[in-house]
């Protein structure tokens, strides 16, 4: 039965045909927030043992649809069936009872608890009647991580860990529930290749156990790698559902954006990179335990890609450059002049900008409006005569919103209510608005949809063409290869390779360089 799961559902059928194998069936789902309709009469079905990809632009409604299935939101109308039986999923507890678990895009973790405590939150192992055992939870967590093929300390307080570890913990937490339906909302957005690979293998094993998986992703290669079927949403409406075997990437992209685009990430030779006027020179930078004796020169018009495994120190390097972490030794020159940067304020004054890796904790004030967030680094420019100029603010914010096609019904809406990808766009827009001399980007396209990603990469190129220098961190090698003129490979905080783009023949070559094989 499991083996036949995918074979009988083909073409553009919406999947509403009754079948005994359908574990989840959502039909006619509609949802509006404060009058803004975000889901319109959407149908979705999941067959036992399949991996069903869910795709769509940022803000298309993917997360909302899944949150309805998980009981976070209740649909305004529509019906949900689990194993053919209509159910009312009014809260997350009901969803868990129905065997549905979810990896949340914005995480469901408590930073003050440890990894293991998070993984087993509400499902704590019990001993002696009613006492919970953190020891057992730690052991089981370690087992889950081993299964996932990653190494995370179950006893570490979450607050001390970076986004990638949060992502892994979030996945482990969903796995710990032993759900029969697992929703994964962009689980690899902050993962590097190695961890992502391990996750795909795990998904294969889960599938073999008959667990059905809904997989939301913006990465076409992943979708083809693991999914059996795909459903595409656009503007809250169902566009297509198809077996992946019978659909081309171009068709999917067309379904997502509603028009044909050549969405391929390719490197383009750029004349500007020949300028060779150094804009940022770093010599012997050492900071904490994760940046050791790093030296490089970034020239005007150049894009340097930073590659490395998780924990290789890329984030720490740009943090130190931006004045967040102190340098214990080393020197920095900007525009040929030696500078000391001890605070982010100084860094900004010297023309640096950093798009941080964690948009929720480092990039945005979630409760504040989109406009206020966009304007935060631009306050000097919108002040005249000592006071903020409301007109300037409104028009500048509007310019950024349209330039980065941020999907927001009203610029005064709280940024935390935007879809994940749109939040990321706000962070990018906020910093590009400052027109920096040196732009540092730490995983800037995490969670951004395909169309926008290529637009962002175009923008990065344009910024470089304009004579600025760019440091570009990404764990997604295709995009790293697409924009970088040069790639530095970091390992344990040290630069182990410094390669000109043209020396890198393909992705595999880079992957091997990163892993140090």
């Amino acid at each position, binding site marked *: 039965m499991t083996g036949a799961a995918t074979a009988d559902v083909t073409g553009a059928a919406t999947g509403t045909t009754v079948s005994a194998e359908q574990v989840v069936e959502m039909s006619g789902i509609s949802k*509006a927030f*404060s*009058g*803004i*309709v975000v889901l319109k009469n959407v149908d979705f079905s999941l067959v036992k043992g399949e991996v069903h990809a869910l795709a769509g632009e940022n803000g298309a409604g993917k997360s909302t649809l899944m949150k309805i299935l998980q009981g976070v939101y209740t649909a*305004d*109308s529509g019906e949900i069936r689990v194993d053919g039986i209509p159910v009312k999923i009014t809260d997350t507890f009901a969803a868990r009872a129905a065997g549905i678990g979810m990896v949340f895009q914005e995480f469901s973790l408590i930073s003050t608890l440890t990894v293991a405590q998070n993984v087993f939150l509400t499902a704590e192992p019990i001993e002696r009647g009613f006492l919970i055992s953190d020891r057992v939870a730690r052991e089981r967590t370690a087992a889950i991580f081993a299964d996932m093929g990653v190494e995370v300390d179950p006893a570490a307080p979450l607050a001390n860990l970076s986004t990638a570890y949060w992502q892994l913990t979030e996945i482990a937490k969903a796995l710990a529930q032993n759900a029969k339906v697992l929703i994964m909302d962009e689980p690899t957005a902050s993962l590097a290749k190695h961890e992502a690979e391990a996750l795909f293998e795990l998904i294969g094993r889960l599938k073999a156990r008959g667990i059905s998986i809904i997989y939301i992703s913006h990465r076409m290669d992943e979708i083809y790698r693991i999914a059996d079927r795909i459903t595409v949403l656009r503007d809250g409406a169902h566009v297509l559902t198809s077996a992946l075997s019978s659909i081309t990437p171009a068709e999917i992209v067309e379904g997502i954006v509603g028009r044909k685009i050549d969405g391929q990430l390719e490197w383009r030779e750029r004349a500007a990179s020949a300028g060779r006027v150094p804009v940022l020179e770093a010599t012997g930078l050492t900071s904490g335990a994760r940046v050791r004796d790093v030296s490089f020169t970034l020239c005007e018009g150049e894009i340097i890609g930073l590659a490395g495994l998780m924990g290789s120190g890329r984030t720490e390097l740009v943090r130190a450059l*931006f004045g*967040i972490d102190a340098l214990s030794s080393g020197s920095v020159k900007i525009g040929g002049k030696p500078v000391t940067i001890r*605070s*982010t*304020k100084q*860094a*900004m004054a010297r023309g640096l900008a*950093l798009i*941080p890796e964690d948009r929720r*904790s*480092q*990039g*945005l*004030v*979630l*409760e*504040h409006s989109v406009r*206020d967030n966009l*304007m*935060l*680094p631009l*306050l*000097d420019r919108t*002040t005249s005569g*000592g*006071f*903020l100029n409301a007109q300037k603010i409104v028009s500048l914010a509007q310019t950024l919103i349209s330039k980065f096609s941020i999907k927001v019904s009203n610029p005064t809406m709280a940024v935390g209510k935007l879809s994940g990808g749109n939040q990321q766009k706000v962070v990018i827009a*906020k910093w590009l608005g400052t027109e920096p001399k040196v732009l540092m980007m730490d995983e800037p396209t995490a969670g951004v949809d395909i169309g926008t990603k290529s637009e962002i990469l175009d923008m990065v190129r344009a910024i470089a063409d304009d004579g600025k220098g760019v440091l570009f961190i990404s764990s997604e090698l295709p995009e790293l290869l697409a924009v970088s003129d040069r790639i530095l490979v970091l390992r344990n905080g040290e630069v182990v390779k410094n390669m000109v783009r043209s020396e890198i023949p393909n992705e595999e070559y880079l992957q091997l360089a990163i892993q140090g094989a």
Partner: protein
Amino acid sequence: MSTTTSVFTKPLSAVRRVDWRQNVIYIGFVAAFLLFAITLGNDGFTTPNNLLNIVRQTASISVMAVAMTYVIATAEIDLSIGSVAGLSSVVAAIAISHFGTVVGILAGLGVGLVIGAVNGGLVSLLKVPSFLVTLGMLGLVVGVARWITDSAPIPIADPFFNALFGGGDIGIIPGLLIWALVFVAVGALVMNKTKFGRQVLATGGNQTAAQFTGINTSRIKFTVLVLSGLAASVAGMLYAGRLQSGRFQWGTGDELSVIAAVILGGTSLFGGRGRVVGSLFGALFIGLVNNGLILAGLDVSQQQIIRGAIIIAAVALSKKK
């Protein structure tokens, strides 16, 4: 539910809900005012002098509430303001009797400046909870004020000081009203219309994100605590002028009223939101209720019961969902 209705009714109800929630203090204020005006009209509630009295009595609270709005907007708190007001009144009174008005005023302000700077320094540099720092300071400062005065009042015989800070009227407008309005106007303008105000809100909304955006959040926290100290010392001198003396007790317990006024006004205790005008109305609301309940002829216990119930009712009206 059809699309059409939802499209048209939803935004409307959203607008209504947002306004309603954020403006609950204004609605509450007007409701309480009308209630008292109708029931206590004959008891002189609506006489101009009584209404001005409400303003006079809440002036010190309003002045402190403006600064406290900034402190709370950065997700900090200042419990020392009541004591600082007391010590400022005492120091100003002593300085006036020895060195005259100007030195007295400067000495009073100096108290707020120094204590605010100590609070701010500890909170921003050592990153320790402002609740405890300022709670410790509350005790310390009141101890100092008692110690230097032997718990006795220090009379202020300077008519200029007393008129400037206290009972003086300009025409029929009480000086205290002007003090409160100036603080509120400047406070609201700075909060909403300047870079500093935005940085305060960002610091309270998400300190890490603010730091990553080039804001020196330590400096911001230091500054708001200094401002709070200064406002408290102005409030202390307003008490001193009105009561024509400095005394360690002036301002005692005001911290709770001030914080209540600020939160009633719509500022979040968790930072990131700051409504200066709301704080003023929060203070006026509290003053109005006190005044009305006394005029209604209730005794202390009844006043306490009804005042508590009114606060709870006002808060319940602002419910989130």
